[in-house]
C-alpha cells in the first residue's frame, strides 16, 4: 500500500512538514480547508467558528457523548491567497503546548490533482516531540474508554 501522507521531521528541530497529494483539483482542496461545514467532516472536530479572511479567527471543539469538552483549539488566520496559501496560528486550550505557526501551501499538479504542503513550527524541540506523541495517547485513551465499557463483562 502506498503511503500518501508523508511527514518530514528532522531530529532536534522545532518544525515538521506534512505533505499529501490529492486526487482533487486545487480549488476543491482549498474549499475543504476554508468551509467550516466541510472542515468539520474531515477533521473530526466541531467547528465553532472559521473566518476564512485575513485576521479571521477559528475555533475547534470535540465533546464526548455526554457533552463534556475533550478538546478545544483556536487560532488566527494571518493571511490567505485563494487556492495557493494560508498562514495561521494554532493553539490547544487548557494544555501547556503554546502556539504553533502553520504554513499551508496548495499547488495544482494537473487539472484534477493537487498537493498540500503544511509546515508547522513549534516553540521548541520538546513541544514538537510532545505533539507527535498525542495521537498515540489519544488512541490508547479511546481503547481504554472501550475497555471501561466492556470491563464489567470481563470473565
Amino acid at each position: 500500500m502506498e503511503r500518501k501522507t508523508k511527514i518530514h521531521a528532522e531530529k532536534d528541530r522545532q518544525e515538521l512538514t506534512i505533505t499529501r497529494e490529492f486526487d482533487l483539483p486545487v480549488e476543491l482542496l482549498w474549499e475543504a480547508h476554508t468551509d467550516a461545514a466541510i472542515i468539520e467532516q474531515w477533521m473530526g472536530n466541531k467547528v465553532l467558528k472559521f473566518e476564512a479572511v485575513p485576521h479571521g479567527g477559528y475555533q475547534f471543539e470535540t465533546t464526548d457523548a455526554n457533552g463534556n469538552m475533550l478538546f478545544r483549539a483556536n487560532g488566527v488566520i494571518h493571511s490567505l491567497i485563494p487556492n495557493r496559501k494560508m498562514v495561521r496560528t494554532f493553539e490547544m486550550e487548557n494544555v501547556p503546548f503554546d502556539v504553533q505557526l502553520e504554513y499551508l501551501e496548495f499547488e495544482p499538479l494537473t487539472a484534477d490533482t493537487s498537493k498540500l504542503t503544511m509546515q508547522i513550527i513549534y516553540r521548541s524541540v520538546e513541544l514538537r516531540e510532545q505533539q507527535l506523541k498525542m495521537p498515540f495517547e489519544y488512541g490508547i485513551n479511546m481503547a481504554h474508554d472501550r475497555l471501561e465499557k466492556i470491563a464489567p463483562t470481563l470473565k
Partner: protein
Amino acid sequence: MNLRRDVFQAIADPTRRAILLLLTVTPSLTAGAIAANFDTARPTVSKHLQILTACELLQSEQNGREMYYQLNAEKMKEIDDFIEPFRQMWDDRFSKLEAIMKQRAKKKHD
C-alpha cells in the same frame, strides 16, 4: 519486509490497541479470554493476535491445551517513535477530505 513499519501498522488498528491495553492490565490471557472482550467474531480476534505476534508485540506460550498471550515489553518500547501514529492521524483525515470532496463534485455534476 520492514518490521519497524509493521509495528506501527499493527497499532494503527483500534482493536489491536485494545488487545495490547488489555494485556497491560492482565499480563497473561488465553485467546478465548481476549476474544470474550470484543463484539468481533472470534476468528477476527485470532487474526489480530496473529498480526501482533508476527510483529513481535506479543509472545505466546502453550500451556496444556491453551495458548497464553503476553506483551513483549522490549518490542513495545519501539513504539516510542511516535511519528507513525501522527502520520496515520493526518492520513485518515486527508483520505476523508478527499472522499468528501469527490462526493460533492459528483453531486454537482449529477
